């Protein structure tokens, strides 16, 4: 084999982290690793989901001698309520993020700063919702689409509009099983109400509502968040970028954008591109302005601008510890409050921008849709203050790990279709463009065995990124195509698996598909909110194939999940008919019934469930076995 640029191993990543940890030790500041040790052993009752602190009679916990809480709730009710509340909170997070985007859409204006970058998608969405588009100003349409979208959060009657995008079979299942979500806020509210003191104690009912509130996320908030973000900032296309801390620049002003809501980071990226600020940076002795992303803000910005990715969730402290960051500007979700204390050790400015995420130790500069008109000016001011901070960098404290990998990112569904069009044959009638048929043919024939959506966070309960990378490599070796989002795809980026030549470590089937189509073996589909894209992907594949989603040799996998958002996601993925493989146990272990319900009990309802295994090597084998079983059932 020809010599290749090396991939970055987990050991190399850990060595970088260890070196940065030493810096933290020298500064006498803790990192998540210290705090994790301090927290251990974790409270067993909490971990098993059988500690109830919903009312002030308790807390109550289930023990061999006390099988019921004071109100009489058993382990199943307690664990089930806790589980539903996690799902509801996750759904709330994604959906509230989407609501903010919808408000920004409502504020769009031909004069900016927020404009419409994908009018075709806007018009398609408007038509889907029966909104008049003929002879109308694009911004009028945008505002009406935003209004109708915002009504999805609180409309008194009916179910969510996006459900009609599902397969006919799914729509029937959702209706028949009572998991078709009504208004998004209503499902969240209902969930909180049901789990309130003195309400539902039947675990199965709680699990059903978990599916429904999850659906309100995946086929509601998240889907809207993704669509409206595309309309506002452009549907992503393929881009080349780089990932890992090595993207921080020794001689440039480093600004890290971190969080999830791109309406803030888009403005920062735009501002950093202005010549005025670039000149200003040069006047301050910097060679340029380097915007790097963290977490899902990185995913959003890289897909639309090629902005490089500094890393994922557990890399946030490391980024600051390099001592080379002039500014860490965050929006919402997954931000460690620890950053507030950590930034005090460096010159780094820590900026919070959302009323949803206020953190002590940060400077708060509010960016909301209400004040959209001034977003660009404020972003410029922020970038300028980062530039001003460049001279304060203490070069003796700087350590930028050298590891960074090339990556090709930006595969929303339309892009995947476009890539697949390239392998169709215009002379064959039965070979239409604009469909997933080429991918389906590759799967049916056995060239590809199936596909896995690799998603989810990092979790210190397991070796950071290790499960992601190990599982992905094994899937690749077994000709299983990967679509990734969130922190999972950043783990892949850091390891080099988003490189075009990563096909060389795949089985021949996946390798050939990558070569013919011209894609990397792991397709970066975006942020965690973009898992909604994956739901549309499997739906369209099922439609083009002529089978149900439950029959597809396609599964989801979240080996290192930690956020409540992941619980919401897992629920809507299962409700869509796709099995979910988890590497971290949901906190319901104290209830045998709940464990049974989430792994098997959902199957009669929606044809899918969880498979849980903490060992990544065993987990990936069960994924492969699961895929092969689905293939066998299809006779392929």
């Amino acid at each position, binding site marked *: *084999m*020809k010599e290749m640029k090396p991939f970055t191993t987990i050991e190399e990543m850990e060595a970088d982290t260890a070196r940065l940890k030493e810096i933290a030790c020298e500064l006498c500041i803790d990192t998540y690793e210290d705090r994790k040790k301090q927290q251990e052993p974790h409270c067993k009752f909490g971990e098993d989901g059988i500690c109830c602190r919903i009312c002030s009679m308790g807390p109550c916990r289930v023990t061999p001698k006390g099988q019921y809480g004071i109100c009489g709730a058993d382990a199943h009710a307690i664990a089930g309520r806790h589980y539903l509340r996690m799902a509801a909170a996750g759904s709330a997070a994604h959906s509230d993020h989407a609501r903010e985007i919808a408000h920004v859409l409502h504020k769009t204006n031909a004069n900016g700063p927020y404009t419409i970058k994908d009018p075709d998608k806007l018009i398609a969405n408007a038509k889907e919702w029966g909104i008049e588009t003929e002879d109308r100003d694009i911004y009028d349409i945008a505002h009406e689409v935003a209004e109708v979208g915002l009504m999805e959060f609180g409309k008194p009657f009916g179910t969510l509009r996006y459900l009609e995008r599902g397969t006919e079979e799914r729509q029937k299942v959702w209706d028949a099983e009572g998991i078709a979500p009504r208004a998004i806020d209503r499902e969240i509210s209902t969930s909180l109400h049901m789990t309130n003191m003195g309400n539902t104690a039947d675990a199965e009912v709680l699990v059903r509502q978990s599916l429904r509130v999850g659906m309100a996320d995946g086929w509601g908030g998240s889907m809207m968040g993704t669509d409206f973000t595309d309309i506002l900032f452009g549907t992503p296309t393929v881009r080349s970028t780089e990932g890992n801390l090595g993207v921080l620049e020794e001689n440039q002003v480093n600004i890290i954008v971190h969080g999830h809501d791109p309406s803030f980071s888009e403005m920062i990226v735009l501002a950093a591109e202005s010549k005025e600020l670039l000149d200003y940076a040069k006047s301050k002795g910097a060679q340029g302005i380097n915007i790097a992303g963290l977490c899902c803000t990185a995913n959003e910005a890289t897909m639309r601008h090629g902005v490089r990715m500094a890393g994922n969730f557990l890399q946030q402290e490391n980024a600051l510890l390099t001592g080379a960051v002039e500014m860490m500007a965050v929006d919402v979700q997954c931000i460690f409050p620890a950053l507030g204390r950590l930034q005090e050790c460096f010159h780094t400015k820590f900026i919070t921008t959302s009323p949803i995420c206020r953190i002590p130790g940060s400077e708060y500069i509010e960016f909301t849709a209400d004040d959209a008109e001034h977003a660009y000016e404020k972003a410029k001011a922020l970038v300028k203050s980062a530039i001003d901070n460049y001279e304060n960098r203490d070069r003796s404290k700087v350590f930028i790990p050298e590891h960074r990998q090339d990556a090709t990112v930006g595969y929303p569904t339309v892009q995947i279709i476009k890539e*697949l069009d390239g*392998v*169709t*044959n*215009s*002379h*064959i009638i*039965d*070979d239409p463009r604009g469909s997933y048929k*080429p991918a389906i*043919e*590759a799967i*049916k*024939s*056995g*060239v590809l*065995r199936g596909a896995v959506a690799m998603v989810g966070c990092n979790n210190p309960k397991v070796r950071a990124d290790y499960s992601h990378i190990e599982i992905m490599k094994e899937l690749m070796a*077994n*000709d299983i195509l990967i679509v990734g989002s969130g922190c999972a795809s950043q783990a892949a980026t850091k390891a080099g698996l988003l490189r075009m030549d990563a096909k060389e470590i795949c*089985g*021949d*089937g996946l390798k*050939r598909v990558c*070569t*013919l*189509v011209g894609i990397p073996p792991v397709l970066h589909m975006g942020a965690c909110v973009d898992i909604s894209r994956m739901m549309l992907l499997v739906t369209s594949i099922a439609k083009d194939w002529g089978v149900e989603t439950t029959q597809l040799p396609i599964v989801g996998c979240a080996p290192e999940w930690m956020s409540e958002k992941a619980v919401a996601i897992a629920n809507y993925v299962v409700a869509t008919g796709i099995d979910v493989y988890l590497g971290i146990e949901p906190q319901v272990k104290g209830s045998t019934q709940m464990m049974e319900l989430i792994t098997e009990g959902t199957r009669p309802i929606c044809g899918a469930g969880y498979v849980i295994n903490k060992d990544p090597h065993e987990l990936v084998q069960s994924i492969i076995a699961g895929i092969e079983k689905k293939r066998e059932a299809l*006779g*392929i």
Partner: protein
Amino acid sequence: MKKLFDRVFDGADEMYALAQKTLDETIAELGESAPVAMPNTAYGLATISAYLAKQVNNLGDLKAAFEEAKTWNVHEPRLTNIFNMGKGTFMAAEVIEACKYAKDPDPYKGEYHGHLSDAEVRELGVPLVTDDIPGFVVIYNPAPSDEEAVELVKGYQTRGIFVFLLGGVIDQVKRQGMNFGFNVRVVAVGPDIWQVAHIISFVYRAAMIFGAVQPGDKWEFDDYTYYRIHAFVNVFDPVTDIVVACGAGAIAMGFPVITDDEKDMWRVPKSILIQKDTKDWIETSLEARDIKIKITNIDIPVAFSTAFEGEIVRKNDMRLDIDGSKYDTFELVRTAESHLIEDHRIELIGKDIDEFEEGESIGFGMIAEVCGKDMQSDFEPVFERNFHNFINCIEGVMHTGQRDVLRIRIAKSAFDAGFRFQHIGEVLYAKIKSEYEAVVDKCQVTLITDPEKLHEARLEAKKVYDKRDERLGTMTDETVEVFYNCILCQSFSPAHVCIVTPERLGLCGAVSWLDAKATNQLNPTGPCQIVTKDRVVDENIGIWEDVNENVFKCSHGNLEQVTLYSIMVDPMTSCGCFECICGIEPFSQGVVIVNREHQGMTPLGMSFPEMASMTGGGVQTPGFMGHGKQFISSRKFMKAEGGPGRIVWMPKELKDLVRPKLDPVAKELYGIDDFTDKIADETVAEEAEAMMDFLSENGHPVLEMEPLI
């Protein structure tokens, strides 16, 4: 529906079982020590060698190799195994064919082509890189009708696609009386699917010859065949499991399969394509393999394609014979003032084809006048030399010779189709305009058959040739300002670079210094780039720092230094499509030169393929060097080692070709007459001792020279 992978499992098992049976029977008959060899190749059993890096000399070796090949047959449903199994199926097929050749070195007796020689592989080097052969197709099974079979084959032929036929389709085209053979790029390989082994062997030898891929380097072979061999497969219904297994091997190599059989057939994008409309196979296939055909639309009543370049028109099939040995003939390109040229004017002076008797011998002249603000008179001979290629591409027309000694035959079939002289004009016009559009703005063609006018015009032409020769004579490596490189072959042989100088043309024989110069000016970022010669290191053996830098860069770091005039010290590399190869002969301390066409043995104890396999693919092998025929009579040939006086042996045919130029050069260098006669050939010696006797008897100058080693 039977799973695709299961079909491959069963098909591979079938081929392996057949190979086992054949091998067992052959060993029982001949014994394990019986030799196994394919004729005219230095690469043994190329497919087995490519995959297993095993040299097979006898049936015992073959048995051992087959045992290893069996480990490639693993029934696990992953494409890696399927690909291996497909390749294993090819190895099994090669075992079957090797047994056949072990029993009889000529098993097909001309009925089928069977094994392809190394020389045939090398012959395709140039047309492949120039895209004259844009790809290969393997057609298997009978078409729905004989007519359709011919239509398909001809369709590929007219697009320049090289056609391999296997199985029933061969009988179909034979029944239709179609003319086929290697020279017209339609090869009837054999009647059964296992003769596919010869095609695969051909492909792997191309990788070894042009790509310097080493036996056993599976990754490199896959890479080479996928990216550089633009082949694909057409299989007519029914496709059996054994064919599916071969298809797996083809697809592994990067060659898609197009079929009309739907039963148990699985579509795989760009790999297995079901096209029910067999009339649309050509376009479907070309798109599947991403082959784009350069289309030259020329309004003539017969086909025009590079596939007809090697076509021979026999005396009995001839309508008209243009014979330069008896009558005036010439071809000429001339630059003229723009106002004197009427674009696309084609004039015939004298009688047309239909006005001559059938089979009559006549004289004929062609003048193409061109203009353009970037046109230079140095381009004239470059265009003119291509008349040969242009005219040969016409179906039913054969052209040989150049300048004022031509032989052109026009077939009855072409005449019957309506072919007349004006169509030669159309071809020249269209090709000159399309090939040289960067410099030619207008072009008009005059054709002459009127004997008087012809004679006058020929004398005029002769003056032009003389003037050119005068210029060429003064054009030496010392007098020109720059050299050129040529990396045309890098699409095939990525590590090789030619340095082209006035006295050393490219080893393929197709690129002279003027050609390179024209190519550079027509396309400044194209395959021929200027190489300066300012920093001389050693003019005697031909080392320039500039040249070394260029070679290092263009060979991607593969080569650090080449000499232009030595075969002992860092000789120039070759891609593999060289016209001739020379190698040191130790007894005489001279060199033996053999051309690609020569089939026999040389006094080195090696044939052309064996000598050729010593080098190629951008590898430097001191003592062996590939080169063009014209280089033999150059003053710079082996200048560092004493010049062409070192040549001790050449095939007679080659001697006769180079004699007119070689003798004067030898006279100039060594003061001896009739030097060529002092060189031995196959008529006097095929081994060293007899050759030495001949050299002594004839007082060959090498005997007076310093030893080479």
